[in-house]
């Protein structure tokens, strides 16, 4: 494996900015509807974390504590879940998260060239946030879009297939 992306811990400003986008009380009405679907409060953890992440951009330390208190589950458990799933972000993750598939079908059809092109274009390594803060770009395991390999997913928003190095860069640039 390549070396993990080196990242400094979130700054106090970054945390405050994320928390400032929505108070937990703002989120509560929607969260209550999620909790109501399950026979146990804790089962709503993944949906709740998704909503928190969409509202705040990433799951801040305060979000962990607030989620744990809201669902009446231990904080350690919330952190265990966040770090188990690759799509939960526990640090600032740009305005959009881009997952570039690297698994077999995509690799057979040129995913490595797509990844190289994106790294070169943005001057980053996979897993980093671009300098302009627009994207966090990650190499991802199979996205289930093998019929459109090589492919990438802008989380929650769009997917792009049959990529070439040029089309991948262009697609992201056009999102700006």
């Amino acid at each position, binding site marked *: *494996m*390549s070396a*993990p*992306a*080196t*990242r400094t811990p979130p700054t106090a400003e970054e945390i405050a900015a994320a928390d400032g986008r929505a108070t937990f009380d703002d989120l509560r009405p929607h969260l209550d509807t999620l909790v109501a*679907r399950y*026979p*146990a409060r*804790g*089962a*709503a*953890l*993944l*949906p709740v*974390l*998704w909503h928190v992440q969409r509202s705040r951009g990433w799951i801040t330390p305060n979000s962990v504590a607030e989620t744990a208190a809201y*669902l009446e*589950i231990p904080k350690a458990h919330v952190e*265990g*879940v966040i*770090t*188990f*799933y*690759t*799509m*939960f972000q*526990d*640090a600032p*993750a740009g305005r959009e998260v881009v*997952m570039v598939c*690297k*698994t*077999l*079908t995509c*690799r*057979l*059809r040129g995913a*490595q060239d797509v*990844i190289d092109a994106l790294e070169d274009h943005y001057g980053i390594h*996979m*897993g980093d946030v671009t300098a302009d803060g627009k994207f*966090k770009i*990650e*190499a*991802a*395991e*199979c*996205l*289930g*879009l*093998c*019929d*459109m*390999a090589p492919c990438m*997913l802008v*989380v*929650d*928003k769009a*997917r792009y297939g049959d990529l070439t190095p040029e089309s991948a860069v262009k697609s992201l640039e056009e999102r700006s």
Partner: protein
Amino acid sequence: MPVSKRLMEHAPAIDAPPQSLADYKATGGYKGLEKALKMEPDAITQMVLEAGVRGRGGAGFPAGRKWSFVPKNTGKPIYLACNADESEPGCFKDRQLMERVPHLLIEGCVMACRAIGAQAAFIYVRGEYPQSIAALEAALIEARDKGLVGENVMGSGWACEVWVHQGAGAYICGEETGLLSSLEGGRGYPRIKPPFPAVEGLWSSPTIINNVETLANVPVIVRDGVEAFRSVGDDDTAGTRLVGISGHVENPGDVEINPATTTIRELIEVHAGGVWKGRKLKAVIPGGSSVPVLPADAIDVPFTYGAVKEAGSLAGAGGVIVMDETTCMVDALMNLMQFYHHESCGQCTPCREGTGWLEKLVTRIWSGEGSERDIELLDRVADTIGGAQQGKTICFLADSAVMPTKSFLKHFRDDFVKAVADGGSPVFKARRDRHAKTSTAAKTGTAAKTGAK
């Protein structure tokens, strides 16, 4: 060779909006449910049992038998979990089904609930499928609005809720008990058995877990009858199969076939336009990345569970990955080992420790630093890990790393020997030459990163 369309018979084109409720109903949609509501629940199970539909998620267990394991009168609620965590590399058929004919799945879920005595179904969709989730959520709004899902299903007085639950990026949640752990809000850890989920699943209550395609067959079975259902396929694999074909083919995509009359070769040559760029075929992984690879001369077999097994692999979850003559099998195996290492949940010792060891060994061979001993060791470490087939792990993830390793070495050992003799995989050497200045970056290919976690 005819295309056998049944589940996808009236599916809108790819990239067109999902089939609406009106369009679905116009082509016989919710007729199965209407019929089922007039039947005894056990009679529905009996039909599914007689139809012989086997699990389309990979394991191939007969769905009707699974349903019959739900204990009666425990006093506990019963749940249905639909496994839409389609994460097996090479598989995308469930995504197509959800995004094109979402009502078919919803109808299947409600009918399955009726049969097993459940009043709630959770469709666990992988986090990377937001479009599938959107299609299902929109269809559920329509279905609730028309009384097809909710407190009074089709005026029968019977209540059934269907919820969509979004995963967040973990292959292991496609393992049925890993899915349950995740659905309960936990890390996606597969569970030791006993207890079996049909007895103690979600929230310690009886739970049935079925794949998307499996459940989509239920409305068809009940609506058209067992005879009609079994008119396609054979005794081993009754009904149609949805198969995705990807990799080195001209037209990657999804097709619904009669498994009894369609061979793997036809899937590639007829449905996917043949191997791309006029090249020759080298290898095929027929059932998703976890199953053993087949050499080019082993693919003239029908796509039934039994026939593919006899050929030395598994039809699995219906994801055919095609590799042309230029493919370096060391590179392909390294990529798969990165995948399984990355996706191991880490619970069981052999899988947690062993998948990484396999990746390290194959990477060493890939990068020209391996020896003949490493090839031998790769094979033996695969045996050491063993997986669930040897009783050494809780679930089959370790086996999913072991089966490719063993079969790649069995059929394509020459590629490994060549990589050792020639200073590495051709893929490695090409990258090294291109990035001569930053050779460290080329050392290992690119592994998926989960960020600084």
